[in-house]
C-alpha cells in the first residue's frame, strides 16, 4: 500500500505539451478517479504512474520513493486496460500467474494465490481456457485477476469498462468497488464516464485539455458531492452532472438585487449578494434539475421557449431557449412535461445557484 504523489508533473511529446504543472496526492488506500474529455491527459498521467510514459518535468512518487526513472517492473503497480490486453497464447491460469512466476515465486505459493484470485472472481471453471474462449466480461475478470493476484501497491485502471455493454458495465462497476474494498489498495481509475466517476470514486480529479485548462490540466480534485455542489469553475460545472449545467451570462443589478439578461430578471440568492456586489456581469450557473416550472408569470422567473423534449420515462429533459441563450431543464416525477413551442416560466432554486467570473470562469466565493 502506498500513496501516489504528482509533484508539478509535466509531459511533452517534442514541443507539444500534454500535461503541465500537475500536482495531486492520491492518499494511501484511496480510490481516485481521473475524469475528463478526450485529450485531457488523464490516461497519460496514469501511464506515467505505471512507468509506460516518461515524466518530462516534476517528480512522481509512489510512497516516499521518486519513481521518475524506475522501470515499470520496479514500481510494484498493476494495470488493467480497456482492451483487457490478456496474453492470447496463455490460458487463464497462465495469464494470472505470469507476474508471480516472472518474479520467481515458488510454485505452491503461486498456485495458492491463483486459486484464491480465481475463486474471488469466479474464474475457477475457466482456468484452463484460452482468452479467445471467454466472453468480454470474463476476459475483463481475468485482467482483474492478473492485477489482484500480485497484491500490488496500487491498482491502475484505464477505462476498463468501456468495451463492455451497458448491463455488464454496471455489474463490473460494482465488482471493482467490492474488490477494492476487500483489498484496500490505492487505486487510480481513469474514465471519461462521469457516472462511473461519481459512483466509484472517493475523490475525483477533473482534467481538461491544456488548450482549455491554461496553466494546469487539473481543474479540480474533490469528493463527488463537492464537485457537484461547488464546482470550482465553469469547466467542472458543465462536465459533472447530466444534462450539463446551464450557464447564462447575466448583468448584476446590485441595487435591486437582480441578475438580468435580455430584459428578464431573477433574484440574486441571499448567499451570493455580497460576492457579486460590484461585478457588472457574471456567469450564472444553474443545473437543469434545479429549475422549476412556475404555473404563471411571476416575479423572479425566466420565460423560456421549449425547443425539444426528451422523455426518459419518469423524467424528461426539456431543451429551451431563455434570455436568448440555450438552456435545459430536467422535470421530475409527477411534474407536467411541456410540449415543443410552449413558453414556460422557470424559477431557479436559490440555494442551488452558482456564480462564476466571466473572465477567468472561476467560481466566485459565496458568503
Amino acid at each position, binding site marked *: 500500500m502506498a500513496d501516489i504523489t504528482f509533484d508539478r508533473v509535466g509531459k511533452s511529446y517534442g514541443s507539444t505539451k500534454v500535461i503541465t504543472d500537475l500536482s495531486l496526492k492520491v492518499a494511501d488506500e484511496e480510490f481516485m478517479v481521473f475524469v475528463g474529455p478526450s485529450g485531457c491527459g488523464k490516461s497519460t498521467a496514469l501511464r506515467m504512474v505505471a512507468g509506460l510514459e516518461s515524466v518530462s518535468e516534476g517528480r512522481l512518487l509512489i510512497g516516499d520513493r521518486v519513481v521518475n526513472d524506475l522501470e515499470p*517492473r520496479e514500481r510494484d503497480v498493476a*494495470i488493467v486496460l480497456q482492451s483487457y490486453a490478456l496474453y492470447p497464447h496463455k490460458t487463464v491460469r497462465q495469464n494470472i500467474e505470469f507476474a508471480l512466476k516472472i518474479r520467481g515465486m515458488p510454485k505452491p505459493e503461486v498456485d495458492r494465490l491463483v486459486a484464491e484470485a480465481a475463486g474471488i472472481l469466479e474464474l475457477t471453471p475457466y482456468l484452463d481456457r484460452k482468452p479467445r474462449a471467454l466472453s468480454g466480461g470474463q476476459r475483463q475478470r481475468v485482467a482483474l485477476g492478473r492485477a489482484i493476484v500480485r497484491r500490488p501497491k496500487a491498482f491502475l485502471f484505464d477505462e476498463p469498462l468501456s468495451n463492455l455493454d451497458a448491463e455488464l458495465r454496471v455489474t463490473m462497476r460494482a465488482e471493482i468497488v467490492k474488490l477494492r474494498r476487500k483489498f484496500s489498495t490505492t487505486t487510480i481509475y481513469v474514465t471519461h464516464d462521469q457516472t462511473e466517476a461519481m459512483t466509484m470514486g472517493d475523490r475525483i480529479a477533473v482534467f481538461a485539455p491544456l488548450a482549455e485548462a491554461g496553466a494546469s490540466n487539473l481543474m479540480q480534485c474533490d469528493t463527488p458531492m463537492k464537485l457537484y455542489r461547488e464546482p470550482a469553475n465553469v469547466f467542472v460545472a458543465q462536465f459533472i452532472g447530466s444534462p450539463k449545467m446551464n450557464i447564462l451570462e447575466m448583468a448584476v443589478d446590485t441595487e435591486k438585487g437582480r441578475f438580468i439578461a435580455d430584459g428578464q430578471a431573477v433574484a440574486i440568492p441571499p448567499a451570493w449578494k455580497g460576492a457579486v456586489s460590484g461585478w457588472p456581469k457574471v456567469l450564472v450557473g444553474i443545473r437543469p434539475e434545479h429549475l422549476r416550472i412556475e404555473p404563471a408569470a411571476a416575479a423572479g422567473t425566466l420565460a423560456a421557449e421549449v425547443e425539444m423534449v426528451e422523455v426518459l420515462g419518469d423524467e424528461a429533459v426539456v431543451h429551451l431557449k431563455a434570455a436568448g441563450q440555450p438552456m435545459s431543464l430536467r422535470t421530475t416525477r409527477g411534474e407536467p412535461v411541456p410540449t415543443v413551442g410552449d413558453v414556460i416560466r422557470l424559477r431557479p432554486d436559490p440555494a442551488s445557484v452558482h456564480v462564476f467570473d466571466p473572465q477567468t470562469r472561476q467560481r466566485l466565493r459565496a458568503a
Partner: protein
Amino acid sequence: MKASRIGIYASLILLALLFALPVVWLVWTSLKLPVEAAAIPPVWVFTPQWSNYVDAWSDRGFASAFLNTVVIGIGTVIVSIAFGLPMGYGLARSPIRGKQAIGIGILFLRMLPEMIFLIPLYGIYRSLGLFDTWTGMILAFQIITLPFAVWLLRGFVEGVPVDIEDVARVDGCTDFQVLTRITMPLILPGIVASAMFTFVSVWGGLLFPLALGYSHAETISVAIANFRGYSNFQWPVMAAGAIIATIPQILFFGFVQRHLVAGLTVGSVKG
C-alpha cells in the same frame, strides 16, 4: 451433388494435375535410361532404373553438396531470424524519426539484382578468406533473406497490440523478456514463414553458390547443374538428384505447414 459443384471439383482436379505434371514428369524421367529419357515420342513402358538415385547420390560431390546446403540453409535461417527479429521489432516499435525511410531502404536492398553484389563480394571474400566457406555463403545469402525477414517480421510485430507488451512490462518483464515470452510466441507464424522463405531461397539459390563457392561450399543446385556433361546430358540422374534435393524442403514444409498457413494469411481477417 449439384452440377455446378461437380464443375468446380473437375476444374480443381484439372488444375492440380496441371501443377503436378512437372513433378510426375521428373519422377518418370528419374527412373528411365538416358536413351529412353531423350526419346521422342516419349517411352511409356520401361523398366524402372532405381540405380539412377544411387548414381546421383554417389556422383562426385553430390552428397557433400547436399550436406553443405543443409548447413548453409539452417545457418542462413538462424542468422536471418536472429538479426531480422530485433530489426523488425525495432522498426515496428521504436519511436525514432525516419523509420519508414529506413524500412524502405532495407526493402530497396532486396530489390537490387544479386548480380551487382557478386564482383565486390568476390573481391572481399578472397581477401578475407570467406571464399568457398559456409560462413561466407551464409553471409552472402543475408543480402537476399535478411531484408525480407525484417519486413515480414516487422508486419507481424505491428499486429501484436502494444497494450499486451505494456501490461507485460508492468507485470514484471524486462524488454528482452517481453520479446521472448510475449511477442515471439505471438508472432511464431511469422518467424516460421520467414524461416521457410529463407530456407527455400538458399536451397534454390544458384548465383551466389556458383560465384562464391567451389567445393567446400558448393550447394545442391550447383551440384545438379554439374550433371550436364560437355557431350551428353545425364537427364535421368539429374532428375533423380532433383528429386533427392526436394525431399528436405517437403519435410520442412510438412513440419511447419500449420504455422505457415497462419503466417501467410495474417491480417486477412479481423482478429
